[in-house]
């Protein structure tokens, strides 16, 4: 059974139609990459999957782990195992990274009928994941993302992913703004999470990330539609030829 099944998805933002009929199937263990120019709807797709209310789904369906995703609130989708690494992670003043992440983990465990994890057990788990992402332990007690550089925020997203162990991780431009060293660390963290039961969708603007996290499938999103799909070599072709190549291909196909 597929993990994620998107059929004919249409979505609006502020009454403008951004997604114009997306079809996508993601099976367990697969890593898909979605690439596209600015305004193509990449982030919109990620936000719709994460169930953000301000994004209006006007048509289509999304099935996640056999359940209707569109019927779920954001926190329920999260508890069902959907994780999004934000493109622009926000600061949450007054709540430490450690406190927040334990609250999140326990919310998910509670939903699943499991026992909560106490601080004594949680802390070593968190520290281990922070080491993997080369985050300084000092960050444990700092308010969420406060004073973090862009790179640190992105790495923090992956630390969270490592702790929450989702079924499906949607990484929204996790590579944007990172220098090569930070990129390698993030890739290390993400690759360590790859297994046959976990799937990932990498939304990316730049091809370079895919040298380090090699996807199984690459989809090109232009103007709210997936215009081309292929393997990792498609990403290279896209990088060389630019997005207009796919638009002309699409136009050609329509004729």
């Amino acid at each position: 059974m597929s993990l994620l099944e998107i059929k004919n998805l249409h979505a609006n933002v502020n009454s403008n139609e951004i997604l114009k009929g997306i079809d996508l199937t993601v099976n367990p263990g697969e890593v898909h990459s979605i690439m596209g120019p600015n305004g193509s709807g990449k982030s919109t797709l990620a936000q719709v999957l994460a169930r953000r209310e301000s994004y209006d789904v006007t048509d289509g369906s999304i099935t996640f782990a056999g359940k209707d995703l569109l019927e779920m609130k954001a926190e329920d989708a999260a508890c069902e195992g959907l994780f999004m690494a934000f493109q622009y992670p926000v600061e949450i003043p007054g709540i430490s990274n450690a406190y927040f992440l334990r609250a999140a983990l326990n919310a998910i465990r509670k939903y699943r009928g499991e026992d909560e994890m106490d601080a004594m057990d949680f802390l070593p788990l968190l520290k281990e994941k922070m080491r993997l992402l080369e985050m300084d332990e000092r960050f444990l007690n700092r308010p969420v993302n406060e004073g973090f550089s862009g790179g640190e925020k992105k790495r923090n997203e992956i630390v969270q992913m490592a702790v929450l162990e989702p079924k499906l991780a949607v990484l929204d431009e996790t590579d944007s703004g990172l220098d090569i060293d930070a990129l390698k660390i993030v890739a290390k963290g993400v690759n360590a999470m790859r297994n046959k039961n976990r799937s990932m969708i990498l939304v990316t603007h730049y091809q370079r990330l895919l040298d380090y996290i090699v996807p199984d499938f690459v989809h090109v999103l232009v103007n709210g539609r997936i215009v081309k799909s292929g393997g990792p070599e498609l990403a290279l072709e896209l990088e060389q030829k630019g997005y207009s190549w796919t638009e002309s291909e699409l136009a050609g196909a329509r004729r």
Partner: protein
Amino acid sequence: MSSTVNQINDLTQQEYKWGFITSIDEDRLPPGLNEEIVRAISIKKGEPEFMLEWRLKAYRYWASLEQKHAEPTWANVKYPPIDYQALSYYSAPKQKKELKSLDEVDPEILDTYTKLGIPLHEQKLLAGVAVDAVFDSVSVATTFKAKLAEAGVIFCSFSEAVKNHPDLVKKYLGSVVPHTDNFFAALNSAVFSDGSFVYVPKGVRCPMELSTYFRINAQNTGQFERTLIIADEGAYVSYLEGCTAPIRDENQLHAAVVELIAHDNATIKYSTVQNWYPGDKEGKGGIYNFVTKRGAARGKNSKISWTQVETGSAITWKYPSCILQGENSVGEFYSVALTNNYQQADTGTKMIHIGKNTKSTVVSKGISAGHGQNTYRGMVKILKGAQGARNYTQCDSLLIGDKCGAHTFPYIEVKNASARMEHEASTSKIGEDQIFYLQQRGISKEEAVSMIINGFCKAVFKELPMEFAVEAQKLLSISLEGSVG
């Protein structure tokens, strides 16, 4: 009744031959404020001569201000002009209408009590339900009274103190907030109804937290409360005022005065949780809370600490302050102030450093939601002789939604070069972004708001006595219900 009071009664009865006599027997004085009313109030309360004279002096000063239309207008709050002659300045302690059971209580009120986690028997008390003999609140109060008597602590109503401890009252009343201090202090000094009086003798650590809840002869929250707390050398007292349950009052204007005096090595901790009726969602009605609170840290190593959680009142104007006279004295101010819907608050604190090596800490957290307007006005004044003074001020504003406002007016006056000042201010917003971030990690919207607010107010909540802190947290959650998203 004492002979003095008899004499006054005779005098006033004579005066009132000309039309006022009937009103003495009634529960209320007619509206208006003049010298006769002030006298009548004093008579009704059976006060000694010195008290009446004190009131009259204050009244005359207030009247002179009122004539000049000198009501303060500099605060960042807007309200329609108050007609002081239309208010009634005295009403006898009401007998609360007794209900037979909680079933007779307005369900909305009960709902709030439940959300606040107020235990059932307390709910009954608050709602005015007849209390049965099994309930031990009376015995609790009696044990309380006994313990205090053992320690030598005086804790009674202000009216009682005027009668039973006139020397103490004479010595300290008005020494921290003189009637000339400001318009509302003058008004209060003329017509104050009642309040608390606390005296803790030398070296005594008050054995329990004093709470208005347990004040013997507890009456309705007075319109013009007057409170005086004195901690003698080496004494310690922690006083709690107010409660989280919403209080309604048909009297709209509340102008209280609180004076604290701490002698050598003494500490006074004054905590307030205020949730007076804030007006409806359209901003109609609601209480005006104009309070003057000041503590004099007179002695060496003395300490005065104000902690408050203010969520109610339509308009709040208060600046609990500390005058740091004694060497090494310490002043603290921890505050969470919330304005929602159409509430307005212009609040803050004044720390006046006079003695050597004094220290003050100000942590102010303002939360604005709805169309609320929250202004922080803080003054730190370091006088010339205040060698080695230190101040740390942290003033944070949290905005929920984009129709509310937060404003900060810090005043810093330093006349001594050895002073060390640290000021931090920040403004953040709980936007849909933060809530969604938490939701995407599995946390529900309500819990998310609660987490953020508590994180924001943490530094203040930890200064409150524990039970108050728990109630205060719940109070904030309830007050902010529905304000996000």
